[in-house]
């Protein structure tokens, strides 16, 4: 490969200027001419039949244009199961479910009109615990589940009516494995509901053209083509009649794929005589009525030999999906599969259940279930190591997947950078150096702000510990990305790609790849705004698939253009196409670089000054194979795998239970860092989210299923004072199919974090905590319990 000029360089973000000046327009900022303002009435009941809705008073309120209920929007949607109505139909299934909506001249009027809507409910028994809801004979939350349209592999289970997916992995014979084991350990772990809490709340604008029936939706959705597909199926409209326009997105982390606010905005827009509707959820509404991460209960049982080899592992996992399935079936499959960890185990059995409850809807969240699996598996690994008298790192190194291993689901693994991440993450926090200061002054921040010290000012009763955890993460497979590249007669490139810039930096790295293929400077490349009428197809901006899939598509589109330019330039330079080279925006002779034409000049001479040369590229990972439904096996379950290890050093105050992270390393195998600056940014951001979920994030519901902390005052996101010294480490284990060897990175950043911290806390206290988050109260009581009962 020729020397890389732009790829692999720390290029600053293409979108940074518009973001630091306030010029960037996000979905929440958008104002359309003559628009109406929407507001939604939410269910106050976790599970109830709607006996009566009276909207007459609201409709008569001055300034109100439309008031609608489920009867006015007889549609359902859902990526895997079409179980979710645009507005509640006949019953409600969680507190926060949209029941009715108003469009009015301004928001105050819409808000006032909501209060005039009368709804009478008849309570039904509610399930708030996924294990309860999963029990045979449970009352169904969805009576009509069997008749819903759904993905082929999803079947109704009359005996377990609230299970919307049951994933099975069967490898070897776990009974035999346990009999051969010299030590068996069985534990239960749990992870609570947390929320994405992207800084931009959810919103959507919609307009229906009364003449053509065409529906236009302006929304910061991270998978516009999937949204288009879902909307088309829901409304029974051909895709050509629907258009998604994507303004900038203020973060998503999985919450803004699929349809959230869009269906209600569209339903309203059908009743406004062509006027556009803006529907914005405020922060509280975003917390209670958009999306959450699955609460998860994990049972794990392992059998090991005294030499540290793992004979058998069995897991039963309950994914609480809330009232609607959303992406739960695929979360359940893709994360139950690798939940037993990236280890060589001959006998493995996993049962994963996605279970309906009467709680807010759970779906995709950065990491797609891998963090929950790791919380259980990686702490369980430390527990096993402790009982075997082995160092946790040594125990892992003995068992981890290495190049050429066949995984327990039957896939021969390649490009496995796991061991390297493990060694580097451990080394970065001086693993093995016991009871030595980290060199970081843990009291620095506290001294500067004694009012924030929260009691950690003593040296007595403080314990330090170290811990690490690792993960292996698949990506959505098989999928397709398509891209276009245009070059004008000034040699400027425009890239058309359906990957959504959600903050992860895709626009910059895709532009880098396009620039690299044509050898033009990065400042000559711009990304086209996203609009499904114009932009080629892309499956989704999810599952860390974009660098690999869209990267390959953009690269092919750029190569297509390059070939066309070379064909046009050859006669002009009186040379053969094969004898041409590209450099610094020019086409030149390979052996006489001083003889050249600029790319723009070639296009101008051949096509005229105003013409544009176009190239196309498409990439599908073709050998992806679906998992076998009975065994969970697949020879190609994922286009590629991401590997990571993180290691934490913590300080725990025994008197208050407060955990402070002193330093934390994160080593991620990215295949090839297209932009190292951006990779570090992704790792740091992932760590911050992981630390928040480890120490304080928890969406608290009361015993009726009502969210008690739907605000940033009460839902504790990590602030600048909560975060430790972070040590991001890039590992590059080349993926041969990836563009320039790249894999993906966005999602794994937070996946091993809570487990690494949990292991460090256990190392400090000699007490194991099985439930997240590690709040001072929980840690304090665990210490008290540990005093009476040795771990």
């Amino acid at each position, binding site marked *: 490969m020729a020397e890389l000029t732009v790829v692999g360089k720390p290029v*600053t*973000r293409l*979108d*940074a*200027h*518009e*973001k*630091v*000046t*306030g*010029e*960037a*327009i*996000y979905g*929440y*900022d958008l*104002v359309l001419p003559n628009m109406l303002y929407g507001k939604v009435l939410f269910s106050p009941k976790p599970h109830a039949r709607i006996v009566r809705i009276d909207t007459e008073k609201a409709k008569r309120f001055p300034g109100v244009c439309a008031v609608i209920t489920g009867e006015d929007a007889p549609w359902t949607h859902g990526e895997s199961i079409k179980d979710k109505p645009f507005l509640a139909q006949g019953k409600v299934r969680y507190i926060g479910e949209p029941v009715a909506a108003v469009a009015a001249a301004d928001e105050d009027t819409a808000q006032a009109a909501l209060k005039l809507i009368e709804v009478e409910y008849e309570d039904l028994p509610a399930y708030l615990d996924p294990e309860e809801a999963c029990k045979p004979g449970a009352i169904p939350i969805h009576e009509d589940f069997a008749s819903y349209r759904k993905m082929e592999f999803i079947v109704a289970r009359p005996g377990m009516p609230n299970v919307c997916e049951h994933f099975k992995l069967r490898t070897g014979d776990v009974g035999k494995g346990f009999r051969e084991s010299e030590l068996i350990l069985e534990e239960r772990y749990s992870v609570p509901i947390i929320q*994405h*809490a*992207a*800084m*931009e*709340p959810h919103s959507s604008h919609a307009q229906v053209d009364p003449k053509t029936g065409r529906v236009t939706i302006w929304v910061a959705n991270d998978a516009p083509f999937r949204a288009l597909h879902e909307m088309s199926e829901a409304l029974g409209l051909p895709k050509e009649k629907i258009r998604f326009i994507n303004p*900038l*997105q*203020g*973060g998503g*982390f999985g919450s803004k794929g699929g349809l959230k606010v869009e269906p209600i905005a569209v339903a309203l827009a059908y009743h406004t005589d062509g006027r556009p509707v803006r529907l914005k959820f*405020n*922060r509280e509404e975003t917390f209670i009525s958009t999306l959450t991460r699955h609460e998860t209960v994990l049972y794990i049982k392992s059998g090991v030999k005294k030499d540290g080899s793992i004979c058998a592992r069995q897991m039963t996992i309950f994914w609480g999906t809330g009232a609607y399935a959303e992406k739960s079936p695929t979360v359940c499959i893709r994360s139950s599969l690798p939940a037993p960890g990236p280890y060589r185990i001959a006998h493995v059995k996993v049962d994963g259940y996605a279970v309906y409850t009467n709680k807010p809807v759970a779906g995709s969240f950065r990491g797609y279930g891998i963090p929950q699996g790791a919380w259980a598996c990686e702490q369980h690994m430390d527990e096993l190591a402790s009982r075997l008298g082995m160092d946790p790192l040594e125990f892992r190194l003995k068992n981890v997947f290495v190049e050429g291993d066949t995984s327990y689901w039957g896939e021969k693994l390649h490009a496995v950078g796991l061991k390297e991440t493990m060694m580097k993450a451990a080394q970065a926090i001086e693993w093995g150096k016991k009871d030595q200061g980290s060199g970081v002054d843990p009291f*620095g*921040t506290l*001294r*500067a*702000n004694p009012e*924030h010290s929260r009691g950690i000012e003593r040296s007595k009763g403080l314990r330090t510990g170290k811990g690490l955890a690792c993960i292996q993460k698949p990506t959505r497979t098989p999928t397709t990305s398509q891209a276009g590249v245009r070059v004008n007669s000034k040699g400027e490139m425009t890239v058309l790609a359906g990957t959504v810039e*959600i*903050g*992860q*930096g895709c626009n910059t790295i895709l532009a880098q790849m396009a620039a690299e293929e044509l050898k033009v400077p990065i400042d000559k490349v711009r990304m086209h705004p996203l609009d499904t009428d114009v932009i080629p197809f892309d499956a989704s901006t999810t599952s860390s698939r974009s660098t690999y899939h869209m990267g390959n598509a953009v690269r092919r589109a750029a190569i297509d253009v390059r070939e066309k330019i070379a064909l046009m330039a050859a006669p002009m330079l009186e040379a053969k196409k094969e004898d041409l080279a590209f450099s610094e925006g020019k086409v030149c002779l390979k052996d006489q670089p001083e003889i050249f034409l600029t790319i723009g000049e070639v296009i101008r001479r051949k096509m005229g000054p105003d013409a544009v040369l176009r190239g196309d590229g498409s990439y599908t990972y073709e050998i992806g194979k679906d998992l076998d439904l009975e065994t969970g096996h697949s020879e190609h379950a994922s286009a590629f795998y991401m590997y990571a290890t993180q290691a934490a050093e913590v300080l725990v105050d025994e008197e208050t239970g407060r955990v402070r992270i002193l330093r934390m390393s994160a080593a991620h195998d990215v295949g090839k860092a297209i932009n190292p*600056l*951006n990779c*570090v*940014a992704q790792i*740091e*951001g*992932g*760590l*911050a*989210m992981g630390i928040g979920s480890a120490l304080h994030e928890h969406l608290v519901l009361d015993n009726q299923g009502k969210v008690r902390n739907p*605000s*940033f*005052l009460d839902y504790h*996101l*990590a*602030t*600048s*004072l909560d*975060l430790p010294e*972070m040590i991001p480490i890039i590992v590059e284990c080349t993926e041969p199919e990836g563009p320039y060897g790249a894999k993906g990175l966005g999602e794994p950043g937070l996946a091993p974090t809570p487990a690494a911290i949990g292991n460090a806390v256990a190392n400090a206290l000699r007490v194991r905590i099985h439930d997240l988050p590690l709040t001072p109260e929980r840690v304090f009581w665990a210490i008290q319990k540990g005093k009476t009962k040795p771990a």
Partner: protein
Amino acid sequence: MKKKIQLTLNGKKTILEAPAHRLLLDLLRDEIGLTGTKEGCGTGDCGACTVFLNGKPVNSCLILSGELDGAELVTIEGLKIGPELHPIQKAFIQDGGAQCGYCTPGMLMMAKALLDENPNPTEEEIRFALSGNLCRCTGYAKIIQAVQDAAKEIRQAARR
């Protein structure tokens, strides 16, 4: 009932009419059309809507229009120095301080408030000053680095 408000907005005298209960945030975004100031929570918890009111940083979602007569306001759109980006803006670009960028305007305004008062802050002082501005993307590391780099640039420029 609308109230007449005279104020200085990003250095320009402005007269407008708004109901006294209209929040400054909504006034800026919906009535004046300056959407650089972001709404993250509407309850004063996230700092995304930070603007300067009479020289002090405030959460514009907690200020009523009725209080604004005679006020001097600076928003993110007024942070540039003439046609030039403010050193804090330049440092955010250079260091990767913005990812999704939604918290960025508020973060920049709060960082400016810090540097106006303390041109040579320690890391801890920066962390403390920005602790009311939430960011879900960056983990704050690049933001803190950008503020340090901007502080250095401002101090050097003052010596030049």
